[in-house]
């Protein structure tokens, strides 16, 4: 009853041979070994399992492998730019946006999704975008600041290349 899945994962084409009932989250962590994506709640409430599916941030804990044929998936492991950390990752480190780090991959993915769409978000827009990502450590202040600083850095880098 296994189902062949041709997918693109962090830019690489792979063929998966998994039963369709396996959750995408478990596929990533247990079958493929990409453990950056975390399980915080399993019910789509905490956002720790956020990945990009066909360009859109989604909760991987609620997706069955059998739905994936042809999908393009990006995980936190795919955020780096070659060997370099993404500016969002650097901002989180510099600003203290991560404490235990468990929510952090989801926060980074969602922040990237926001900044890809809105390069100059207000604080309200940042908090709205991150509504589905819960953090028990930081109180969100440093996370918001990191997103603002990352946005500024990305705008600066963008201006430099034009």
């Amino acid at each position, binding site marked *: *009853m296994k*189902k062949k899945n041709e997918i693109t994962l962090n830019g690489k084409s792979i063929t998966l041979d998994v*039963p*369709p*009932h*396996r*959750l995408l989250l*478990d596929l990533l962590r247990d079958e493929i070994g990409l453990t950056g994506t975390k399980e915080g709640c*399993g*019910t*789509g*409430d905490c*956002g720790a399992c*956020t990945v990009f*599916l066909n360009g*859109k*941030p*989604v*909760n991987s*804990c*609620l*997706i*069955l492998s*059998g*739905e994936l*044929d042809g999908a393009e998936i990006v995980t936190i492991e795919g955020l780096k730019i070659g060997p370099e950390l993404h500016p969002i990752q650097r901002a989180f480190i510099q600003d203290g946006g991560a404490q235990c780090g468990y929510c952090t991959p989801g926060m980074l993915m*969602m922040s990237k*999704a926001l900044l890809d769409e809105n390069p100059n978000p207000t604080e*309200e*827009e940042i908090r*709205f*975008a991150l*509504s*589905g*990502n819960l953090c028990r450590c930081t109180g969100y202040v440093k996370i918001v600041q990191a997103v603002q600083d990352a946005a500024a850095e990305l705008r600066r880098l963008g201006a430099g290349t034009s």
Partner: protein
Amino acid sequence: MKRPEPLEIFQPTSVREASDIFRRNGPGGFFLAGGTDLVIAIKEKGLVPRYVVDLKRIPSLSGIRENLDGTLVIGALTTMREVETSPLVRKKYPFLAQSAAEVGSIQIRNRATIGGNMANATPSADVAPALLVLDARVGISGPGGENVLPLEEFFVGPGKTVMRQGEILTELILPPPPAGLRGEYIKFSPREMMDLAYVGVAVSLALEGKEKRCRHVRIALGAVSPTPMRARKAEAFLLDQMLSEKIAERAGEEASRECKPISDVRSSAEYRREMVRVNTKRALLNTAANGSGQVSWLERRERRY
């Protein structure tokens, strides 16, 4: 919480094929749209499907289009995020887009579909009151053929719709609105996001003149009855009245009398009844005061309290 057990997934590319799969495979099958309800039901509520019919590869079920006569048709598999961000919906019915924005998180809204949400028939579903005040109808397709009926008749109880095994909700149909229609949806809940409505109130109004005479009025309530409901007595009271604060207040009292809330883990029936009274008045006055423009998220928050 448990992981899903082995099951088979079918991915038909037409509604006909989807119905046929049900007929051929018999009981134990469930339709899969965004999965944000079904997968949770599998993980937390003991649902064990034998097979699942994924509707996401059926092109005719997606998309939002406006017909020449002003009818808006929203495919059942349109995601909440698509409804929220659609330039067409935001221009024509901004409060419908806003009601979709109240659902879960962006991650959830990128998967959750408007049709799946209606088929799940939760009494507190945020888009339901907005759709009800827009006189929405649902298109259903099944072994017996196709049918269109008012959304209000589609719900029969908490989690229950008129649909039978193998039937699929295919689209939501919003008729052309009266001229100058404006509306508002208030989601009353303690958390700003990621919460269920304790009370949901939607209104749509067409007001005439400086005295704001109600030529068209609809009021719908969520989370205060077994299904999302129209507050028809409050509507009848308001029709042709001038919408003053006093009149809005009395309409709120009327709506509060006709709802049928229960006490549950979130709220008592008495509190819900009181919040219907307060928020109906608020939604009416907000609508009367607004232009038809988009309201920012922050403004929405402030206006609730």
